[in-house]
Every structure is written in C-alpha cells, then in structure tokens.
C-alpha cells in the first residue's frame, strides 16, 4: 500500500471577508472603497500566482513529543512562493496597500485549501482504513521540531521542494503543517480546526470572544444573551426565543433569518446565496451561519410567505465556485458564465465569474412547462402530441429571462457572457434542444441523442455574444441523464478508489454505485410520495408542513416547518411518522395499522380549521411502495456489483427532499440498509454544482464523457431479482 500521497488538485479561492478582516478593514472605514478597488485590481492575478500543492503521509510521531509514540498522518500544504515574493516587492516599492493585501489574500488562499485537504484526507482514511481522533498543530500541541519530522516523513523536500529554516519554519512561508492522530475507528473524523483549542487569543481570525447580543423579538420584547462561541442561532435557541431552523442550521432553508439593527455581522457565503443585495444591506443574515465578531442588536422576524424552497445548494467538502463577492462591487468588464440545472419542476441558474470562479448570484424559477404535466412521462406524451416546439421555446425563454435578470441585477453586459454550461435530465435536454421524444416514450427507451454538446450559444440564445460557448453534459440513458453525470463529476465519484453510492431522491430515483473502475446506474420509480404527492393530507415543504414526529408513551410530538399551525404532512413527516408508528408497535412490520386506526387513520394533528390531519392506511401503502422502490434498487445494484452494503464507503443523498431527512428514521423503516447509518451524507443540488465546475473548467467534459462511458445501466424492471427484492423491501423493518 502506498502511504504517501501528493495532492495537486485544489480549488483555491479568495475569501474577501477574511482578507478584509485580517487587515482590519471594515465597511465603515473611510478608506474601505479605496482598499476594495485595489483588492479587485489584484484579485485575478492572485489566483494565477497561487501554486497549490499538498502531500500527506502516514507516519509516526516519535516518542518524546506526546506521552508515547503515536501513529499519525502528516499533512503539508502550500501555495508556493510567488505571492509572498510579490508582497515583499510591493512593500519595497512603497505600495504598502498592495503589499499588505497580497499577503492577506495569500493567507486566504492558503486557508481555502483546507477544504480540499479535508476531503482528500477523508478519502485517504477510507482507503487506509483509518479514523482521525485529533488534529494537532505546532507549536501549541507539539513542539516546533515536529515540522522537521513532517518534512522527513512526507519526503516533501524532494517531492514538493519544501525547505526548513533553522527556526523550523517551512519555506515557502505560505505553508501549513497539520498532523492528525489516527484511530482504528474508521468512522471517526475529527479533523476540523477548532479555534477554541488555540491559545492565540489575539488571532484576527479567531471566533470565540464572549459577546453581548441584544435581541428584539416580533412582539418588541427585548432580551440580552451572551455568546462565547458557536453560532447566533445556537445562542438564541439555547438562551431565549425559539427561531425556526428546519434545515438544522445548514444554511439552506433560509428560515432562521434575522435582521441586524446595530453592529456589524459579516456576510457569509450562504447569506449571499439566499439574500438579495438590498436585503443584505438592510442587515438580513442567517442566524445559523452567523458568527458575530462584535456586540450586536438584532431583530427576530421572519417572512411568512408560503414558498417552497428551491434547492441550489450543494455540500461536499469544497470546490468551485464559492460565493464570495457581493455584486455591487462587480465591474462591467471581465468574463462571466452561467451554470444551469434544468429540473422537471424547477430551474436553477448561477452567474459565475470565469476569472475567479466566484459565484455571483443564483436565480431560480419554476419550469413553465409544468402546466403541461408534472412529471417527465406526461411531458414526453405532450411533446409527441405536438408540443415539441412550444416546449423548446418555453424552456429557452425561461432560461433567457433568468440570465437577463441576473445580468441586469449585477450590471453585467450580455456581451461579457462567454460560456454557458447546462445539466438536466434526459427528457429536459430533449425538450431544450427540440429533439423528438418518440424513442423516450416506449420500450426500449432510446434517446434521440445522449452525447455531450459543445455548440455556439447563439444556437439557443440568439442574443448572446458570437464567442459564447454552450456546453451540455452527456447523459447515460433515457432515465439517467446529464444531471446525474454532472453530479458524478462534482462528487468525483468516477475518479476515486472508494466505492460510493449516489441516490437522487426524486420521482425517478436515480442511483449510481461504484468507483473509478466500475460504475453501475439505474433508476427506480419512487413516485411522488417523497414530495408529499398521493398522500391524503400530503403537502410540499411549505410552512406548517409536519416534518418531524416523535412518539413516546402514546403521546405524539410533532414539529412543523417554521413552527406554523399544521397544514399537512410533507415527505419527511410521512417517513418520520411511519418510523415512530413501527417503533411503538402502532403499526406492524407489514405496514398494517392497529385495528383502531385502520379505518380512520392515525391522528396526527388538528389543522387551523379544527379538522383532524391523519396518516391513513392508504398513505402508508404509498410510502411503502416508494421506500421499497428505493431499497430494492439499492439491493439490486449492490448484488450486480457483487458487494454488500457495508462495503460501500460513502452514500450521497441528493435532491431537495434529502435535506431534511432524519437518516436514522429512514433506516428504521428499511428505506436504507442499516449498514449505511454512518455513511449517509446530504449533497443537495449536485447537478448544478457539476454544471458550475464544467463552466469554470471545460476540460471536465472529457472526464464527463469518460464517466458516461464507464457507466453501465441496470434495467430494474427487466431484472428478476428486482421483483423479489421489491417484495422483501415492502416490510417496515431494518
């Protein structure tokens, strides 16, 4: 086994907020704008001068440093010496502003590599079958001399050209050394830096001072909480008012919004994704992401409109494009592009700077075609029956409008749009391109065209510049489309050794299992139940939807989205209820409710009209079919791959619904194998992320083509094992 790994693939990025904090430049500074101008002048050049490289090695911390000799992974990461050299040069020329900024930008770039490193480390740990129990840094955890061990054991002198000074500092200076103690528990992964363990109380990047937060709630009542660390949401929830956080503080649902009345609260990337510039200027922030650096006065108040949140987020380690810069600082020059995800119901369009890879803004809208049918099958039918051209025009105009709005909002000329990258399911791409859908509607389900496309943007959007390229990801089959290939690229699934599983929990239930050597795909007809469809009192993820349930001693506790009066049950709620009913014996494992609930259904809550919201026997059958489809799909894929569930290293759950799902409950009802318990990870809109990556790096198209070619489709309905697995997966048991 190879125990030294060199890492060359990084996604360095500049976090403006961190840079400005480091040089202590805040928006109220009289020279803020001037510094900002300089920042934008140099920003682009900085990324070019950044030469990231990293190395990890499994080695030993010799006895003498800690109580005894310990096994550890040494990690060194650097951005090279060009930026520091430029900073020094600027200082010597008397351009202190640039000198200082470049240095801070270099630090930001260096720290941004951490996300890539953590992701690599995660994979290496899987490959080496190690867990991480603690992260150590010189000189507070180990003496500075450990840096000499790090150099020796990683062989980074030879492999990366690093040197050590007599004071045990690495050259280039922009190098960080971190050391991770290993453990035998593969599931342990305590690798994140924690400011609380660092004795450097003056660090400008530190986040732990106790602060006073004055809170005015919606009834104008005032309270003061103090916070030492953690997020604003945690401080508020533990010390005073409740504040809705349906996504569990992931910065996705946008429900924990608060307004800052006094004091400065930094804008996070999530804030930029969810708020408009005006809202940001008015002080709107997400409490769950907020780590205040000074005393604040805030107002608790949330918007009440019944909106379904559209998924545009993505979580996996890191990657381009990060959001960093708020739009009003954007100039009208430069090159930009759009990353687009065409969903059956919703469209997501992301405006991205091609020079920095920074996501400037994201726009979402509903797909206008949906009035002609909610799912792909009805769309195929309508298209065959003469709607082909209308659909094509509709989607193009939807997308064009979204792009125009974003350009206007950020004062960017259409001429500066140089590239558009698109992902979407096979049917959506057919409709976009105006391809005939005949083959998609009948056995053996053959697409008209499935390969990738690289054409002039003018073909679809005549008003774009003649230089605009348009890229569309390749698909795999009629059922597994470009959106999945895009997600696979974003997750690097077809490039790595560990065996990973991607499940898109939508109506089509696409799944992909494998690694760089073998990739199996399939899709399973999960139906609309996960989105609240076909459920008697089912509803989408709207305020008031019952989303959490806990049953103990015959007393049922429920939670609704945003804490509103209950209006119905959303997909997550249905799964939670089913799990609680089985756990408490109110329903047997075949899915039959106890006799006294059988007729009327299990009472869950009263709606504002005083009517009983029940989970009926029929609802349970619906969810049973949906979860059985998912589970049997997984089982058949595993069987075809020739492995068991515990041989899968990581499981990604994509799709809007996956975000709020309590995986343990999904395991209780048998939707996922129990062996997945520690491995399930939510990834959100991986398709949009893949499109963004392709936009920034068109070479990814080669990778995409390889991935699509590697994929082998398993047709579930034709697989006799599927029927059997399906029947077995009907039971509500682990």
């Amino acid at each position, binding site marked *: 086994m190879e125990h030294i790994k060199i890492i060359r693939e990084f996604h360095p990025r500049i976090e403006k907020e961190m840079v400005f904090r480091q040089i202590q430049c805040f928006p109220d500074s*009289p*020279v803020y704008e001037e510094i900002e101008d300089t920042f934008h002048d140099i920003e682009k050049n900085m990324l070019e001068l950044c030469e990231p490289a990293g190395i990890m090695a499994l080695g030993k911390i010799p006895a003498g440093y800690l109580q005894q000799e310990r096994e550890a992974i040494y990690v060194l990461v650097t951005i090279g010496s060009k930026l520091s050299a430029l900073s020094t040069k600027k200082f010597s020329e*008397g351009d*202190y*502003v640039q000198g*200082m900024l470049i240095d801070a930008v270099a630090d930001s770039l260096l720290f941004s590599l951490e996300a890539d490193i953590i992701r690599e480390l995660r994979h290496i740990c899987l490959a080496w079958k190690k867990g991480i129990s603690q992260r150590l840094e010189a*000189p507070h955890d180990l003496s500075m001399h450990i840096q000499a061990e790090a150099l020796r054991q990683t062989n980074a002198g030879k492999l990366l050209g690093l040197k050590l000074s*007599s004071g045990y*500092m690495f050259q280039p200076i922009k190098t960080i050394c971190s050391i991770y103690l290993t453990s035998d528990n593969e599931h342990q992964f305590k690798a994140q830096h924690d400011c609380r363990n660092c004795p450097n109380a*003056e660090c400008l990047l530190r986040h732990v001072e106790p602060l006073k937060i004055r809170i005015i709630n919606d009834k104008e009542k005032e309270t003061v909480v103090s916070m030492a660390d953690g997020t604003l949401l945690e401080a508020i929830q533990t010390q005073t008012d409740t504040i809705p956080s349906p996504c569990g503080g992931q910065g996705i649902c946008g429900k924990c919004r608060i307004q800052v009345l006094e004091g400065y609260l930094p804008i996070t990337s999530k804030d930029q994704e969810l708020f408009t510039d005006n809202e940001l200027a008015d002080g709107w922030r997400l409490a769950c992401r907020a780590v205040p650096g000074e005393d604040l006065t805030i107002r608790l108040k949330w918007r009440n409109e019944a909106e379904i949140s559209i998924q545009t987020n993505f979580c996996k380690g890191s990657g381009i494009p990060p959001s960093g810069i708020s739009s009003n600082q954007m100039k009208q020059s430069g090159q930009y592009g759009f990353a687009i995800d065409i969903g059956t119901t919703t469209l997501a369009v992301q405006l991205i700077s091609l020079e920095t890879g920074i996501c400037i803004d994201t726009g979402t809208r509903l797909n206008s075609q949906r009035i002609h049918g909610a799912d792909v099958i009805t769309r195929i039918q309508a298209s065959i029956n003469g709607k082909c051209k209308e659909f094509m025009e509709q989607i193009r105009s939807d997308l064009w409008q979204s792009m125009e709005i974003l350009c206007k909002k950020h004062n960017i000329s259409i001429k500066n749009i140089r590239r558009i990258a698109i992902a979407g399911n096979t049917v959506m791409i057919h409709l976009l391109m105006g391809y005939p859908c005949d083959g998609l509607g009948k056995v053996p389900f053959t697409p008209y065209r499935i390969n990738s496309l690289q054409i002039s943007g003018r073909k679809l959007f005549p008003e774009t510049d003649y230089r605009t390229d348009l890229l569309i990801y390749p698909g795999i089959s009629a059922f597994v489309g470009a959106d999945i290939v895009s997600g696979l690229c974003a997750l690097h699934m077809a490039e790595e050794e560990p065996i990973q599983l991607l499940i898109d929990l939508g109506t089509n239930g696409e799944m992909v299992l494998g690694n760089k050597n073998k990739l199996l795909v399939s899709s399973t007809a999960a139906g609309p139940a996960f989105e609240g469809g076909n459920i008697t009192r089912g509803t989408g993820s709207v305020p008031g939807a019952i989303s959490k349930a806990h049953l103990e001693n015959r007393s049922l506790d429920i939670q609704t989205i945003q804490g509103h009066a209950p209006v119905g049950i959303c997909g997550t709620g249905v799964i939670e209820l089913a799990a609680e009913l089985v756990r408490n014996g109110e329903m047997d494992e075949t899915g039959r409710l106890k006799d006294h609930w059988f007729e009327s259904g299990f009472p869950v809550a009263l709606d504002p009209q005083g009517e009983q919201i029940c989970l009926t026997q029929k609802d349970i059958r619906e969810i049973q079919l949906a979860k059985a489809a998912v589970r049997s799909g997984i089982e058949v894929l595993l069987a075809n791959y020739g492995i068991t569930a515990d041989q899968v290293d990581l499981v990604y759950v994509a799709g809007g619904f996956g975000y709020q799902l309590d995986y343990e409950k999904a395991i209780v009802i048998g939707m996922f194998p129990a062996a997945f318990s520690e491995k399930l990870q939510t990834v959100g809109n991986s398709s949009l992320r893949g499109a963004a990556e392709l936009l920034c790096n068109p070479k990814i198209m080669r990778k995409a083509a390889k991935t699509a070619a590697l994929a082998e489709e398993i047709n579930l309905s034709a697989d006799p094992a599927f029927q059997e697995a399906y029947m077995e997966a009907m039971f509500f048991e682990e």
Partner: protein
Amino acid sequence: MAIIQEISEYLQKGRAKNVKALVQQALDEGIDPKEILNKGLLNGMMIIGGKFKRNEIFVPEVLVAARAMNAGITILKPKLVEVGNEPIGRVVIGTVEGDLHDIGKNLVGMMLQGAGFEVIDLGVDVKPEVFIEKAEDENADIICMSALLTTTMTNMQNVIDMLKDQNLRNKYIIMVGGAPVNESFAQEIGADYYTPDAASAAETAKDAVLK
C-alpha cells in the same frame, strides 16, 4: 504655507494623486524640498501614526496614507539629494534567523520611513553576522529585529552578543519586537527598546536618535 498644509491633509486622507500633484506644484513654486518633506509629508505621517496609536484609526488608513507619502517622496527625492538633505537617521531592519514572518517587520519599516528615517530592509531569515555587516556598511544608527516565533526570538540575543564580542554594542541603538517579544525579554537580552506596535516604534526611534 497653505500648500504644505494641504499636502499633509491629503496625505492623511491617503490621496496619492493629489499629494503627488501638490508636491510637484510646491517644487515649481520654489518651496524648499526639506520643508515639503518635513512639514508636509512627514508631518502628515506623524499625525496618522498618533491616531493609529490611540486606536482612532486602523491599519488600512495607515497603509493608504503611507502609500501617498511614498508617492510624494518619489517626486521629492532627486531634489532632496540636490540640496543634500540628510535623513534623521539610518536603520537596518530584518526578521531574525530561522523566522520568515515579515508583515510586522514591513510595517515597522514603513512607519520608520514615515518618521524620516532611511530604512535598509534586510528581509527575513537574517543571520546575526549579516545584521552587523550591513549596519557597519550602511553606517546605521539603529538595528531593528523582528521575531514571531518563540523558537527564533532567542536569535536576537545572538546578534547582541556578537556585537558585544566585536566591541560594537554601544555604536548602535537596538530595537526589538514581534508578537512573542515583550519589555522584560528585551531587557533580559540587553536590547535598548521594545515597542508593541509600528507607530510607537517610529516615535521611539525618533526620540532615541534625537536624544
């Protein structure tokens, strides 16, 4: 004189372009370059330094002002050489051997320049003998050493000891600084001055050479 006052004020606001134009104008008007330097540029920097020390302004304002000062000096320099203007003192500055942290040192250098010193920057990872050689070559008044690591701060002692060995200790004013350094450490190793930040470093240096 109004224009000199204006130079100082524009400098404090960090307006490099205005400072440049006004310095040129002042020269054209035949004003003594020394006066432009001392009462315009350096006076402006002194006010900025004071404000910084009193926490009235932050690093960015200082940087912008210093950049404007530098723009002015660039224009003034040839004239200053002509009239034979002498800086108030010469400083060699560097980060000690084994240490590569340079931002603190750079800021100290910047403020010293703003106080009217000629600053010779030796860079980082500077060996004790290099500090001494350069100080001798440049006929320096002050040696400034910066260290950010506990493992490297002891190298300051080496420089001082080496100076003593060569019987040069009393020829130089020695100043030390950096995050882990403090007053008592400075005394222990036999340095002359320690200051916690760049603005007070410039003030202290000025007082020391004028004494």
